[in-house]
């Protein structure tokens, strides 16, 4: 099942439910936001292999070369929003420039976002799920689609501020440029953990991926996010286990394997200490 809608302002929506696909854009000047509602979509950007799961979405700047792959036994449900570069530039100017500057025809250059995974939460999640719901009903109303897309960009700016700008300010370095460079690398560390959470992730692997020494990584990660990379990994595994418990009927043993745990009893112990109930009780509660 595939839904494609290209709007008169050159923004585009593609929604798909498929087990296998490979997509490489043909150099169109557009920003891309990609969401996954069920399953996993892999995205290769500048030699980085990034996995998109239902708890995150990826943002890609205009002009970035990338490709996406879906290879799954169960159907993977995805949504890709493509924003025309001019549209994003205009949106950014409207948000950041005063009325006087806008009337004087002043303009900022097209924004360049940090291309990585962002948490799919809050208003962004609400609005995208509404949009998805409308698409499933065959949405064709351009005004309504544009309103959702407008809000989606607005929500993305909010998430960007929280995930990037606020975290930059938490770092204790004096120079802003140093802070920004560290955040860029910490974002890579999180991206690596998110994409490889179900493998035997080591600090050395993360440190090599984000080009920070292990000590530097540990210190700055804690400063920015308030937890260690290991704690972040464990939280991520628990959250993804919760998602699988809620949305699938996979046996617990299978879920434990899928999220990268070797031992079911140690997973149950961790789950209980984090969620304050056993996985089976959590699953029963999810269906009440």
């Amino acid at each position, binding site marked *: 099942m595939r839904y494609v809608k290209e709007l008169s302002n050159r923004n585009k929506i593609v929604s798909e439910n498929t087990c296998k696909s490979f997509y490489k854009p043909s150099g169109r000047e557009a920003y891309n936001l990609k969401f996954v509602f069920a399953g996993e979509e892999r995205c290769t950007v500048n030699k980085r292999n990034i996995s998109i799961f239902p708890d995150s979405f990826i943002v890609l700047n205009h002009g970035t070369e990338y490709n996406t792959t879906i290879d799954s036994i169960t159907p993977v449900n995805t949504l890709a929003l493509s924003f025309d570069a001019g549209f994003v530039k205009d949106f950014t100017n409207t948000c950041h420039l005063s009325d006087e500057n806008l009337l004087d025809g002043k303009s900022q250059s097209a924004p360049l976002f940090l291309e990585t995974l962002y948490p799919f939460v*809050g208003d962004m999640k609400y*609005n995208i799920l*509404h949009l998805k719901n*409308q698409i499933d009903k065959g949405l064709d*109303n351009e*005004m*309504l689609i544009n*309103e*959702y897309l407008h*809000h989606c960009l607005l929500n993305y700016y909010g998430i960007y501020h929280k995930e990037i700008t606020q975290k930059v300010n938490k770092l204790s370095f004096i120079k802003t440029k140093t802070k920004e460079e560290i955040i860029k690398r910490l974002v890579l560390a999180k991206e690596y953990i998110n994409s490889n959470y179900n493998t035997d992730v080591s600090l050395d692997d993360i440190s090599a991926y984000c080009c920070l020494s292990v000590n530097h990584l540990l210190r700055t990660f804690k400063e920015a996010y308030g937890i260690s990379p290991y704690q972040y990994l464990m939280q991520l595994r628990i959250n993804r286990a919760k998602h699988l418990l809620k949305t699938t009927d996979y046996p617990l043993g299978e879920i434990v394997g899928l999220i990268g745990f070797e031992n079911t009893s140690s997973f149950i112990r961790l789950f209980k200490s984090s969620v304050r109930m056993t996985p089976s009780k959590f699953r029963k509660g999810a269906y009440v």
Partner: protein
Amino acid sequence: MKEVLAESFYVRVGNLSDALTFFSDVLEMEIEPFDTHTYIATSKDEVSIFLSEKQNEKQTNQIYLNTSDCIEQYCLLKANGLVFTQVPSYQPEGLIAAFTDGYENHYYLVEPRKYND
């Protein structure tokens, strides 16, 4: 904004005939007579609005209408010619848009959102 659980509102309007047209054609609400001076407008989420030209002590000028998708409702009503005084905006309670009926009554279209789930 306070959490409002009311399912009915009593609203005073300047001209009942114009108000009924506004509630049925623009807001797409069901209209039915209640008594000689009052009509009831019922929304999709079953909120009842008692419209009357006569004043009574139960009347309010702040009316809250719940919706499951504020953006969809905003576009639908905008297409019907409604001018909003506040476009959908993010508040701690959720997404809220606002409009008036021309008689200084303020309507809030509220999509409650739980951010902790």
